[in-house]
């Protein structure tokens, strides 16, 4: 389960929502029956009827940043500052404005004099307000946004001075240690080499080291041993399969449309392979982003390169389309998905909230949303529906044709480009102002690039999304890398860098990483390498009571918190150790490509290929090994997965055909080695599965267990399979320390 940091939320000004009971904001004045009655009879009805239209959390457009629908909103005031000074009507803006002939509030009609007198009396009483809770929150104003942590330009801070200068290995360590020292925390001991090797294998390629690889790495005592191991793993083709899957979570990668008309996407796998290839090639991240947003508009060196660029735009076409029938919003729904996936994947922020109204929390106007929407409105999606038939309601068909005559999903510019009119309250049938295509103003970029009117604008959008001056691009990407190495990002809400998101725990460190990332040519591999070679990453998982007391959630990274293997790494590790893993990538898709769109078939985990290649059909249960272990929901842009522990997982490990088969395979593999006696067999299993030797107690326990099961089942294979299954089921196998 993901954790939210309390202080960050409090900082966000959400006191009303988050304050502990004991510390709930107490009203300035005593609320007695009389004052409550006064508020309820004289004040609240006026607020509701005269003010909420513009000053409630649910107003179509909150005016002046002022919310009057909660006590907290009232006390917080708006863009013009506080509106109520309890006890002092003459100094209270609300009273002034009720009377002010020029800036009178409410603007339509001056309130009756006796009503204004009620307000004066109420403020004089101390503004008693019995309202609690409600949906009050304050929107980040444009002015505040200029200094909001994620929106200020990325800085290049110098590494801080640390007391324990010997501890730090790199600047990253200095940032981490300085934060620890400020809290009185001390890093725990370093991880031992075998632990570190297992950690690196899983974190970089998602597979365990073989006993031989482990032994080699542990025996390598040269000073650059770890660095060479890291280089080797980063160069391995398995790296892209591990890190590509993270990207596919964000891309809501699926092999069918889902929703009411669940047509297969028989060509989606080409995009999957493109992602894996790109990550293995360490394609500069900015280039990777540009290709996915506007590959079709980029210049190509040759036919093959052109194919690659077209396949990349599959990112936009993987959307789950709603039924078009009786849905006047269909077009805007498709566009909304494009805007959402683009903004969340690349900017770590969703613009989607501004589809129907100005964003409630972040300074994104509805107008800006439609400026971006126009870019996608000027884009044609090429879904490449299954069986050659465009499904009912699936929208325009069409497909990219590649140089070799093959086809690919993707997008292209529409024959006629267009600007899009605001849909009032998101209703496509009620249109407002037509907004020229453009970008949102949250990222402090200076002059926004002008959209080429003859094109959709995706080319300029791609450039804007990857501009080194864009404060979100590199920060969001660097945070994701950190998240995949430490389990949580420095900002714990990797797809919400906005007002309601979490605040970054190590702002300078994140900026340092982002700056380095851009300076290193947006190389993801270099960034990963710089992180895993730190002492911070190489700490042990050991607990420490003093640290734990001060920082129970390890926010300040005083240890390397153990991580559960994700669904893919868990299954892949089982296959790898049973000997059943097929390391090559399959040609094409493992998903059925021809099925009833209303009833997609169930898919299984029964394949020797790595889990990234398992079939992903929307609207159908995922292969069990993925579904039970919190794999990404392919309908959603998933930036951080849930982590649950439930009996259904235990039952999968105890009873599923998959685990039984794999355990048998592991046993057969073991028994095929005639040199091994029982004790050596146990030792080998421990090396294979847990990347460590067995203690004498463990050998004794396991051999006794095997002997007992063998006697009962009259099968040596069954006995060893049962032991292997128990070890697959153990916490030690499932967690990386």
């Amino acid at each position, binding site marked *: 389960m993901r954790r939210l940091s309390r202080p960050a939320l409090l900082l966000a000004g959400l006191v009303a929502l988050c304050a502990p009971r004991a510390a709930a904001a107490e009203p300035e004045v005593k609320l007695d029956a009389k004052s409550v009655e006064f508020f309820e009879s004289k004040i609240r009805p006026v607020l509701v009827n005269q003010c909420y239209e513009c000053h409630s959390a649910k107003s179509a457009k909150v005016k002046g940043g002022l919310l009057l629908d909660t006590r907290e909103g009232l006390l917080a005031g708006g863009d013009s500052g506080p509106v109520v000074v309890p006890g002092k009507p003459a100094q209270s803006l609300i009273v002034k404005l009720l009377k002010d002939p020029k800036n009178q509030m409410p603007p339509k009609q001056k309130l009756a004099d006796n009503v204004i007198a009620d307000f004066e009396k109420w403020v004089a009483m101390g503004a008693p307000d019995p309202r609690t809770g409600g949906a009050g929150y304050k929107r980040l104003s444009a002015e505040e946004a200029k200094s909001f942590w994620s929106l200020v330009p990325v800085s290049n801070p110098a590494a801080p001075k640390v007391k324990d200068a010997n501890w730090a290995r790199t600047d990253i360590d200095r940032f981490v240690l300085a934060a620890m020292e400020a809290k009185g925390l001390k890093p725990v001991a370093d991880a031992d080499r075998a632990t570190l090797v297992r950690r690196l294998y899983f974190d970089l390629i998602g597979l365990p080291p073989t006993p031989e690889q482990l032994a080699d790495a542990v025996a390598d005592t040269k000073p650059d041993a770890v660095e060479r191991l890291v280089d080797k793993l980063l160069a391995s083709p398995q790296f892209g399969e591990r890190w590509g899957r993270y990207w596919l979570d964000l891309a809501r990668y699926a092999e069918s449309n889902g929703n009411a008309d669940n047509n297969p996407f028989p060509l989606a796998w080409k995009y999957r392979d493109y992602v894996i290839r790109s990550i293995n090639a360490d394609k500069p991240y900015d280039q990777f982003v540009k290709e996915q947003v506007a590959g079709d508009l980029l210049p190509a060196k040759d036919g093959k390169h052109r194919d690659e660029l077209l396949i990349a735009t599959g990112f936009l076409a993987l959307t789950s389309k709603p039924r078009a029938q009786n849905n006047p919003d269909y077009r805007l729904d498709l566009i909304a998905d494009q805007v959402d996936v683009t903004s969340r994947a690349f900017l770590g922020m969703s613009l989607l909230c501004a589809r129907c109204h100005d964003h409630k929390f972040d300074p994104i106007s509805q107008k800006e949303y439609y400026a971006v929407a126009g870019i996608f409105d000027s884009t044609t999606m090429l879904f490449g529906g299954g069986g050659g038939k465009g499904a009912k309601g699936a929208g325009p068909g069409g497909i990219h044709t590649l140089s070799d005559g093959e086809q690919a999903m993707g997008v292209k510019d529409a024959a006629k480009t267009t600007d899009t009119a605001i849909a009032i309250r998101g209703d496509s049938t009620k249109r407002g102002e037509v907004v020229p295509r453009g970008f949102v103003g949250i990222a402090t970029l200076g002059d926004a690039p002008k959209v080429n009117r003859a094109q959709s604008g995706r080319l300029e959008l791609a450039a804007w999304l990857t501009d080194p001056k864009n404060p979100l691009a590199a920060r969001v990407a660097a945070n994701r890398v950190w998240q995949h190495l430490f389990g949580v990002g420095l900002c714990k809400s990797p797809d919400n860098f906005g007002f309601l998101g979490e605040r970054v725990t190590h702002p300078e460190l994140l900026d340092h990483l982002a700056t380095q990332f851009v300076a290193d040519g947006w190389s993801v591999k270099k960034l990963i390498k710089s992180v895993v070679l730190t002492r911070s990453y190489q700490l042990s998982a050991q607990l420490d009571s003093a640290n734990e007391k001060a920082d129970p959630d390890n926010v300040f990274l005083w240890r390397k918190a153990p991580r559960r293997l994700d669904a893919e790494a868990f299954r892949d590790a089982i296959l790898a150790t049973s000997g059943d893993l097929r390391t090559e990538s399959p040609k094409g898709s493992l998903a059925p490509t021809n099925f009833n769109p209303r009833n997609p078939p169930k898919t299984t985990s029964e394949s020797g290929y790595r889990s990234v290649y398992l079939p992903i059909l929307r609207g159908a249960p995922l292969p069990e090994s993925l579904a039970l272990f919190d794999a990404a929901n392919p309908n959603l842009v998933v930036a951080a997965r849930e*982590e649950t522990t*439930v*009996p259904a997982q235990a*039952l999968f490990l105890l009873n599923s055909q998959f685990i039984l088969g794999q355990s048998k395979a592991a046993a057969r593999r073991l028994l095929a080695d005639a040199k091994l006696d029982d004790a050596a067999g146990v030792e080998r299993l421990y090396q294979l599965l847990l990347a460590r030797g067995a203690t004498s107690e463990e050998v004794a326990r396991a051999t006794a267990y095997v002997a007992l099961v063998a006697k009962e089942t009259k099968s040596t294979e069954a006995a060893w399979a049962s032991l292997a299954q128990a070890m697959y089921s153990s916490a030690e196998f499932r967690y990386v320390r």
Partner: protein
Amino acid sequence: MMPVVSRRAALKGASCGFGYLALSAMAAEAAAKELKLAAPNPLAVKPPMFPAKAKRVIFMSMRGGPSHLDTFDYKPALEKDAGKSVSGNGTPGDRIRGNLLASPFKFVKSGESGLPISDVFPHLAKHADDLCLINSVCTDVPNHPQSFLMMHTGEFRFTRPSLGAWVLYGLGTENQNLPGFVTITPPADLGGAQNYGNAFLAAAYQATRIGELGDNVAAAKIGNLTPATTSDAQRRQIDLIQAMNRDLLDRGGKDQAVEGLIDSYELGFRMQKALPDVLDLSKETAKTLEMYGISGKAAGGNGKNNKPAQAAGGTDNFGRQCLMARRLVEAGVRFVEIAHGNWDTHGGLKNRVAQLSGQIDLPIAGLLQDLKQRGLLKDTLVVWGGEFGRTPTGQGADGRNHNSAGFSMWMAGGGVKGGTRYGETDEHGGKAVKDKMHHHDIHATMLHLLGLDHQKLTFRYGGRDYSLTDIHGRVAKDMMA
């Protein structure tokens, strides 16, 4: 923190009627004890904070937002003023726009109490004297995912424990061989698993899910429940797993994740014996099946695509959910949620409300009847409701839009005053105006009926005591018998 209660102590408090199951659990416990594997049991029964009538909950979650104006909130003025144009009700984000739309259904004075209930619920209406219609429910946002999450977890902005998880945390569960919290065919969307999740509470408090909304309940299975080997052999294997896990805890120190894993094996082991038995409806008499609207013919769905047999108002699917719910609570499960929908009637209101109601009317009536005759209704809290209601104004000629400012739920059994209407909406039913029951108030009241003080049922997380109702919540004592 949780009191440490041994499994043996917990079993002593377990309900009867599961002799052999309890016995095998005890045998397992003895085995575990020999291997020094016994762990504190987070699901052990805990006494309520104060004496209470309700011991368990059946929550019927009506996904999509059922129209209160066509079911349980009788508004004569809506009929009288039909066609009149109105705009807004002053609550945030309201969608009340256009002309008032009269309900196409008649409300019938039902029971001795004369509660007005729409004629789409003829069977349920016979139990009017057991129902407390809550006509003043409201949530903050008239959007499905937010309101659905608020109704289930109190909050949509952050991941919070679900209502069922809180109840389980507060009271534990009576049968250690079964999950304490079961959800049958919850919607996969609208927050999905978050709606029955444990968030920061121990993993043991999340629900065990059976199928998902849209599944044919007759065929819905919990995967991998058939043991791969004999019970003794499997117990021995689990003991080995747990010994390895305890070694890890000894070496690495306290680790909630590993502890959760340990719990998951114990629960899984017991579940694979007990759960199939409880969910096996073939043990019920034909008369009982009939009472719930479970038809033998329709039992297998329509035979195609594994679709539930409820297309034309069929009662089989929800009947099964209701009967499973009864069997589960009878067996000692603390909290059972059963979902139904989709009640999102933007269009086709007349036909769809009639059809959806038809699917659940007889099963609910059967459930109430059955609970009563088994003496279970008095201490089982039955709750019916969706994430919001609908607008008094029409959306098109035959639809209603979302409305979270005022809608209806009902409760029965478990200490609730039957035959009553609690709270009121305005004359046209757009907004709760009297005895408002915000979702926090609903939660506070449900917890109170279970003997839990919503302000005291807290969990320390990240330096702060959290509760289901946050800093809100009002207990509606007037609803109580």
